């Protein structure tokens, strides 16, 4: 016997999401400020509403190239000089695209934060988009595309988007563009996209860390507050529609053949809700957790712990700017492909019969009680606020759904699942089709198309 009895666990202390304040700089840039004592690396997230669908169709990927080249030289500094100015101050800079806009990440110790904002203002205001630098990043992106296609998970996600959304939808194609559109991107394209979209009137700066608010606002005003609004520029004439449409015939299985692959990557996706869904968001993280969010989830308890087919499957709901997706993904042993697909579909069908009180509480408790730790760093608080801002929301979205968690009933879960369980669904398998496609066809779970 263990010498000591199993300890009982009491209720956790009450916890509040870090409060924020909102401000506006004189040039119209919005500010969201979190004072986080003890967080000495200050995280800044610049959220710029520049939706992906606004890219010209023939130049898709230009927004991503802009995020990668904005800081590669300005009117007064070469790319190399800008990198050095950032790095001698230990400032980490990165930027990328989400569906609804651009997020620029800047992390620096508190005493270097203002220097970071100053340099950011410089490249936001007067980026050089030097032809050599743009060309270099275009080539790097083309190499990256090759890497994405060679990775089973990357390939599956790309094929899924293509098979799920209509061809005219921006969401059917990679965020950072395909080889055919990226190859033609020039510095003129970057300048045009930048002028049309990267503007103070579209921007919110989120700052989180151990900084005095008044001092931070003064510093922001004399840096990002001086980013001048350029003359209005015309947006792209041949942009994609602003909403993605699901194909009318997505219910099929696409098997991408990789000769000799020892595993099959599975990527199943169906239409899901966005954060503004009727009935609130809280049921969805709970459902994701129960189906495929932990080693004890319904998927892993069968496919991993019982069968040993996989290192782990994951499932969950993800909000997009309009609608969302429910995804199941993971890699399984090649010769278990058909059985795994069958088990997954069976588990999803079984979810329609509902969830127990115990399941509900275990998931709601996990999500609710991990929140104080999940939102404890400047990096996470700022990142969440930046992403929410691009969706037109703020951190009250988080506090609201966390509050809703404790009120959820098993009926709420069943209702939420039933809203989305019969939505269009598409399945992509990346593996050895010669070895596995016939068995998948024999399941009778939908038309199977094999592609190279």
């Amino acid at each position, binding site marked *: 016997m263990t010498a000591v009895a199993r300890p009982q666990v009491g209720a956790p202390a009450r916890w509040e999401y870090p409060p924020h304040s909102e401000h506006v700089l004189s040039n119209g840039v919005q500010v969201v400020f979190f004072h986080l004592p003890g967080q*000495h690396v200050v995280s800044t997230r610049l959220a710029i509403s520049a939706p992906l669908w606004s890219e010209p169709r023939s130049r898709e990927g230009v927004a991503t190239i802009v995020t990668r080249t904005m800081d590669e030289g300005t009117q007064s500094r070469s790319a190399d000089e800008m990198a050095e100015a950032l*790095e001698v101050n230990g400032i980490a800079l990165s930027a990328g695209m989400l569906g609804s806009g651009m997020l620029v990440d800047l992390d620096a110790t508190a005493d270097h934060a203002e220097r970071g904002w100053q340099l950011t203002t410089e490249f936001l205001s007067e980026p050089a988009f030097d032809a050599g630098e743009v060309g270099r990043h275009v080539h790097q992106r083309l190499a990256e595309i090759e890497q994405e296609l060679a990775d089973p998970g990357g390939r599956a996600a790309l094929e899924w988007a293509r098979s799920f959304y209509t061809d005219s939808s921006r969401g059917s194609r990679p965020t950072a563009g395909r080889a055919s559109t990226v190859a033609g991107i020039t510095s003129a394209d970057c300048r045009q996209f930048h002028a049309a979209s990267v503007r103070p009137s579209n921007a919110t700066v989120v700052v989180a860390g151990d900084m005095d608010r008044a001092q931070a606002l003064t510093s922001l005003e004399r840096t990002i507050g001086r980013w001048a609004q350029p003359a209005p520029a015309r947006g792209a004439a041949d942009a994609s529609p602003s909403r993605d449409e699901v194909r009318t015939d997505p219910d099929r299985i696409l098997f991408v053949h990789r000769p000799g692959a020892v595993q099959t990557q599975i990527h199943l996706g169906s239409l899901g809700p966005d954060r503004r869904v009727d009935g609130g968001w809280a049921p969805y993280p709970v459902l994701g957790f129960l189906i495929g969010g*932990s080693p004890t989830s319904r998927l892993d308890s069968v496919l991993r712990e019982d069968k040993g087919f996989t*290192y782990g499957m994951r499932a969950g709901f993800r909000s997009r700017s309009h609608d969302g997706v429910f995804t199941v993904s993971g*890699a399984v042993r090649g010769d278990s492909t058909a059985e795994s697909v069958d088990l997954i579909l069976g588990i999803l069908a079984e979810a329609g019969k509902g969830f127990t009180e115990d399941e509900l*509480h275990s998931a709601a408790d996990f999500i609710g009680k991990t929140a104080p730790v999940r939102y*404890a760093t400047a990096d996470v608080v700022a990142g969440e606020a930046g992403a929410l801002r691009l969706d037109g929301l703020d951190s009250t979205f988080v506090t609201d759904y966390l509050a809703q968690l404790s009120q959820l009933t098993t009926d709420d879960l069943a209702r939420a699942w039933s809203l989305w369980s019969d939505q269009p669904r598409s399945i992509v398998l990346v593996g050895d089709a010669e070895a596995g496609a016939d068995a998948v066809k024999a399941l009778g779970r939908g038309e199977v198309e094999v592609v190279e």
Partner: protein
Amino acid sequence: MPAARDCLARLVGALCAAMSRLRAYGGRMPLEYPIATRRLANGLRVAVSPDHSVPAVTVNLWVDVGSRHEPEGRTGFAHLFEHLMFQGSRNVAEGEHFSALMAQGGQLNATTWVDRTNYFETVPTPAYELALWMEADRHGYLLDALTQENLDNQRDVVKEEKRQRYDNRPYGNGLTDLNATVFPKGHPYHHSTIGSMDDLDAASLDYVHDFYRVHYGPANTVLTLVGDVTVEDGFAAAERYFGPLPARPVPPQPVVEPLGPLTEPVRLDRVEDVPQDRLYLGFRLPSGATTAYLAGELALGVLAGLATSRLYRRLVRREQIATHVSQGSQGRVAGTSMGTIAIDVPSGVAADDVESAVCEELELLGAQGPTPVELEAVVADTERWWLQSLAAQDERADAISQYYLLHDQPEYLNTFLDQIRQVSAAQVQEAAATWLQPRSRAVVTYRKQED
């Protein structure tokens, strides 16, 4: 920081953080995280670092067994064993370690590395004693619950992990190959933590029992508590749950002499189904947590760690004969560490030309050392990522366990930045001249298979 760690399962949710005791960072005052240590009668080393800013406690255990302790024919065993620690113990049912702690808001996992195996959870304050109770149960009484069925199932899971992370992805075995090239056959770092399929197949229940009895004693383990707990309560709880565990002898460490740098280049060429050529360069480095190691780490940073680093400037920005350059190093305990540089080579460029350019830069850094601005940049970068990682209480706990177990320096995290700042340009140059010269490189090349 790249680190070849084998996780039991991917981390659930984002990681955590807490308020530091850092004071007046801008004035470069020393870090002052409070750390108290004590050794229990059975030999367990305990560290407690209170931080009440978040109502949560991290429980972190480092056991002094990793892939370097695996004899020939047993590769991958330390990691497979880590999986078995989640299959139940005397008073804990199969799967309950995850389910019970997650239901209390716990985030938990385990990892295996060359020098150690690590178990950890961050839980709301009222659940930390449950976490300790469960950890004590599996660290003291695992074998009562272990079955052949559990072993067979987890062997299958680990084989899928190997396929997913190593065998079925481009360049998946790159670092495994590099370890095998930098370290000679028979050296404890020659093989990877994931091991070989044959050795995994050969693992028997008897060996599991022997391995546990030898390596999983309290005196071979460090327990760290960080977060919403006082020193007094933390020590008392450690004593309450771990004190009754029987003492066991500390196993002897594998004896291995420190290695000098390679005296001539060692190569391994592979032609594979990869999207573009990739070069891995590996170098031996001194033992971790030494000034000589830190100087080597900074030298690698000057070469390949930043956008202003020499190889990035030359290969990626100026000559455009590489699309990506990265570096990494891991301080290791058995006399010799390893540093790596990885370079992606675009089609149309010969990997050999890229390697020649790298060799020129290695020689130059060894001959002339870093400029003041280069050193300033890598030190500033190190300061930011070090402080950023310590902002999360689970990472702080991990750092305390690491340096307590492997180097007997539980307070190392408070002094690391001071030591980094004291490394001189001359020491960086010396490290480059000694360890990072072309003659001392191991090179693993993945060449794209032509259709």
